[in-house]
């Protein structure tokens, strides 16, 4: 059975959901959004099962618009061993994020759920796109729904945060577009797989083209352009400043998706585009200056993010800064350019999505009750929220890399990757490991202040908290106020996955190795020898020299 329709279905399901949901009543929109997200999750699981069963999942419509085929762009979809996990992560987090919004989002619900499903379409689009232009379109498309989710349903500073978020990522994205268009035009194809439909050069993807024929100067510029967009999105130091603000102001679900998936678009872009195009060449196969430069940026981010996180009074901002630190590890592993580091890096993407997403969910649950995230106003929640405290500590441990839980495997592999990398040296891994100490410092600082200690919570208004219908007047915030079935139901799936990945990371790690090695391997044979048809060879030879911008 040809299962390629699943790729289309994966995009159509949330798209249709978003459109239909836009016409429903507020009350119905909630349930509908949940149903749609669960259906999408179902489709993604089906897709993943078919993919792992060996089905060739590719969509490449022959009837693409002429103008597009003329420049080599096409509506091509596909799945790789890397993207399949990110797809699953996305669709897995989506229902949880929606479920977490049920009581915290109270205004303009219909629009909210429509946007959040539209966001899902865009995110999934990035992961299934097998065409550079299509990838870029989806990549930028994620901005718009997120912009509104932060800008409308966010905290008091939401306008500022949304604008900053948009401007930063959009500014970076424009440069990425320039680089993508340049390299695509030069290659005559935007295809990311080797069956590219370019007019000039057949059989080669835009990536392989770039590896074979771009001059070092051109590649340097292309790398700069790609990096601009992806580094902002990831975010790497020093272009991370939009992130803490956006996280702090975003509604819980927005933060979960932002941390869980949107940041991964940056690392995913680095993974499938920046590294193979910018670093892997034909002769001296890797441009070392880049690996050292980025590794240093990552290490600064790891330590800088951790120290900033430690002193934040707002626990959501604390976790946001921890993302800066964590993604430093993720990108460091990637730029180690060895199997260990790169496999660890992909796993890091998944793990960070789970752990940090879960942390944001837990913090959102605290915020729903006490309307504060101030570390100085909350204390000793274990006394009146034991179940929530269990999950809080659990995901804290996952986040600080306790062996047996998911975070450890990826943290260790990325650090080990940097340590043993042929392009870096052990000092990089060693200095990055300081981040492992600091990670425990800020997370346990938060746990000690919020969960442990004498119970202290701000008084909350009756009206805001439905559970408190029978409050006892002054000090009723001190009574048992634990999370209910819905909230436990949100956290349990995350906790289970955290344990499964911690114990059997091989589920994710094992399949992707060959894919990662392909990413690192440039076609070493000159094209003329590879192409059998003399005519094509002539074309290829003629096209080798391409006008390049001077540096």
């Amino acid at each position, binding site marked *: 059975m040809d299962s390629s329709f699943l790729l289309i279905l994966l995009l159509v399901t949330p798209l249709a959901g978003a459109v239909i949901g836009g016409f429903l009543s507020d009350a119905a929109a909630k349930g509908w959004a949940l149903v749609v997200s669960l259906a999408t999750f179902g489709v993604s699981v089906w897709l993943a099962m078919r993919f792992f069963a060996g089905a060739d999942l590719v969509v490449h419509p022959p009837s693409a618009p002429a103008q597009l085929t003329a420049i080599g762009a096409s509506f091509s979809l596909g799945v790789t061993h890397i993207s399949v996990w990110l797809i699953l992560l996305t669709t897995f987090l989506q229902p949880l994020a929606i479920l977490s919004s049920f009581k915290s989002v109270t205004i303009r619900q219909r629009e909210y759920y429509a946007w959040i499903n539209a966001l899902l379409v865009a995110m999934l689009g990035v992961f299934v796109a097998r065409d550079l232009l299509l990838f870029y379109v989806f990549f930028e498309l994620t901005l718009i729904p997120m912009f509104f989710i932060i800008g409308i349903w966010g905290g008091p500073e939401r306008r500022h945060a949304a604008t900053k978020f948009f401007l930063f990522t959009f*500014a970076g994205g424009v440069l990425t577009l320039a680089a993508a268009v340049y390299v695509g035009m030069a290659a005559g194809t935007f295809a990311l797989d080797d069956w590219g439909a370019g007019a000039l050069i057949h059989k080669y993807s835009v990536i392989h083209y770039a590896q074979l024929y771009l001059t070092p100067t051109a590649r340097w510029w292309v790398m700069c352009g790609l990096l601009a967009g992806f580094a902002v999105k990831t975010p790497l130091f020093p272009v991370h400043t939009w992130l803490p603000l956006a996280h702090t102001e975003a509604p819980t679900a927005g933060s979960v998706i932002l941390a869980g998936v949107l940041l991964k678009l940056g690392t995913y872009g680095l993974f499938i585009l920046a590294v193979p195009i910018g670093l892997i060449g034909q002769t001296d196969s890797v441009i070392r200056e880049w690996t050292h430069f980025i590794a240093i940026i990552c290490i600064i981010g790891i330590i800088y993010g951790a120290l900033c996180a430690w002193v934040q009074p707002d626990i959501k901002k604390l976790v946001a800064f921890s993302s800066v630190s964590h993604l430093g590890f993720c990108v460091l592993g990637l730029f180690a350019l060895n199997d*260990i580091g790169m496999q660890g890096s992909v796993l890091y993407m998944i793990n960070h999505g789970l752990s940090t997403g879960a942390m944001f969910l837990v913090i959102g649950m605290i915020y729903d009750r006490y309307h504060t995230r101030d570390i100085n106003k909350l204390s000793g929640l274990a006394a009146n929220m034991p179940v929530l405290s269990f999950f809080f500590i659990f995901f804290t441990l996952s986040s600080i890399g*306790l062996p047996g839980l998911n975070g450890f495997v990826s943290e260790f*592999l990325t*650090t080990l990757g940097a340590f043993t990398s*042929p392009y870096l040296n052990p000092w990089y891994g060693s200095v990055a*490991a*300081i981040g492992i100490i600091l990670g425990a410092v800020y997370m346990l600082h938060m746990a000690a202040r919020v969960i*442990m200690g004498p119970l202290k919570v701000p008084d909350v208004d009756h009206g805001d908290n439905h559970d408190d219908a029978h409050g006892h007047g002054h000090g009723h915030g001190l009574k048992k106020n634990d999370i209910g079935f819905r909230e436990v139901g949100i956290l349990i799936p995350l906790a289970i996955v955290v344990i499964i990945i911690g114990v059997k990371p091989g589920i994710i790690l094992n399949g992707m190795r060959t894919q990662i090695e392909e990413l690192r391997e440039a076609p070493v044979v000159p094209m003329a020898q590879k192409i059998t048809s003399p005519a094509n060879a002539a074309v290829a030879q003629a096209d080798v020299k391409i006008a390049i911008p001077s540096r």
Partner: protein
Amino acid sequence: MQHFWVVQHSWLIPLLPLIGAAIAGFFGAKILRGQSHWPIWLAVGTSAVLAFILLFQTLALPKHEAGATPESTAAMTAEGPYTPYYSKLLFNWIEAGDPALIGTAEHAQNVPGVSNSYFQATASFFFDPLTVVMLCVVCGIGFLITIFSAGYMKGESGYFRFFAYLGIFIFMMTCLVMGGNLIMLYLGWEGVGLSSYLLIGYYYEKPAAREAAKKAFLVNRIGDFGFGIGIMLCYLAFGTVSYFGNGVGTHTGLLELANGSLTQFQTTALYWIPFCLMLGAFGKSAQFPLYVWLPDAMEGPTPVSALIHAATMVTAGVYMIARCGTLFVHNPAAMTTIAVIGCFTALLAATIALRQFDLKKVFAYSTISQLGFMFVGIGALAPVAGVFHLVTHAFFKALLFLSSGVVMHAMAGELDMRKMSGLKRVLPITHILMLIGCLALAGFPFLSGFFSKDDIVGAAFHMNFFLGFMLLVAAFMTAYYTFRLYFRVFQGPLVIPEAPADSHGHGHEPNEHAAASQSAIDTGTAPSSGVDTAQTHHDPHAHHNHEPALMMFPLIVLAIGALLAGYLNFPSEMLGDFLGKSPSFIYAYDAVHNNPALVHATIKASAFGQEGKPEPLGIKLILMTVSGLIALAGIYLAYLFHLKDRARAAALANSMWPIASILDHKYWVDEIYQRLIVENLRTLGKLLANVVDRFVVDGLVNLAGLIPQAGGVFLKLTVQRGYLQGYAAAMLFGIAIILFVVFVH
């Protein structure tokens, strides 16, 4: 050993306590409540039984020939069932890179252009005499303490939580000692750190407890940082993190490869690996400069202090160095460092213990000091002595902690020895048990501590006279502070601390009486008017049974251990011979023995459990006499100052106030760390977050972002429109722009 049922099902040993923990944790709050100890009792009890079966089966193996070398052990591996070691693979835990590269030693090395590598960490166990001994200590003492805890923790809120944490601890600790590679060791290592964190923070509402818990975890993390780098270096140098790879004698594991022919890089790595790993050991085993967490850890319930912070977890560092001895002995400087740090810590902690008044704090510093002894043993190339002391110490220190727990229980939470005296009259059994523990700790002749401490001191003298002498000084102080505690708390006139009003509910003492009993404590003079009334007055205490059988039984077992454990290795070196069959010890000895450049030329085979020239009995006897006399002298001095005339102790302290003040402030080490490291880092963090991030980084980026500001204005307008159609139109418009860019080209 392969054919043993217990070995085949060894995964039960860690798994059962974990299941027990899950049952206690998930069903304890609502269903089991006061019965939450049952799952843990059953699970840990079964694990302990399995551990002892393993021990006896291993012991029953036929003795192999003397002087086993790696060659002969390799031959024995081939024979199969007669080898006292065996590894059990459960599943592949972490695997990255190309499996086709298995077995190529170069694959992990830093070769430019070669990105391929293979990293594998299996969930596997390795059993040898060292594992089995550690396992029996962990499960055996762990079981006794779970029994004790059921009595001790009775009625505490969060009773189930306590037992769930204990279950997690036993799971992690058994993984630590059974693990077959460094990653499994690291799993257990971090895991026991977690359990320690949870248990220290058991009374999480107390700010002191939460700070202590956090401190314990973070100080350990600093050590783990070194440990982690050590593991990565091991992998980089040898391409594996497994102790013995595919099996002892196959030369595929770390500990064997380190003994083989080494490349230049491997030699360099072997210089640094010990220092990295040692940092981890110093953190976990509370050695200078990372010892500061252990005294604070006494905020946890007393059974936890006994199990985790005295008997088992803190000895993990000793275990690690004993296990990875081969990686350490290649670097004489590292061994010297371990011995010197151990000796320094032993002295430092002993001096601090001299001036502590909290029972548990005294024993905490004593634990640090005794761990220092073990490190000297290992550093002085006598791992058997180190492990021997580990075993005896586990008995008597657990006994001492639990006995102080009984005291604390009876005294309504009071642990200040200035507020109590003469307790032998109200706690007769505990008194005897405590005395046994104190004698063993003080190194009183013919009790367990005497023999094991002696072995270490002997090894230290062998290495360096000054080192040995310093240990004797530390031993003298140990005897003194131990009996200072004993004489003050159990002997002398009976004084019972005033119970806090809310604890037992019987009223307040008259102030004058309190003053009288206080003077009785201070002077040690018995027939003060207040004393007899004190007894009658406090009779309500006596009506409670402070020594329930549930709590006494484990204590008695431990006391027997404290009395007799020394005879495990004396007069015949049973424990040493047994441990000597561990491949870790064989290879470590081999590395030292075959390389005259290493450390002392006069290395003793018996120190590694290997058979060699027996030590002349005379020297041993002289040393025993000397150290026995030193212990007696310390005890006598404590008698003079703390029983005969307590006022004299206070007078002496006053006359030497500068020294007393330094000791009272514990050399200000905590304060120095706080000021120098924590506060500066936090200031840096604040500077980065509030100044650099806000103005410098963001400012620069904003400056660059001025150009698209115009676009921002446009978008702000669209926000304000607020129509869904409008947004959709904007979205389409954006796409159109992109496509336009493409077409225009």
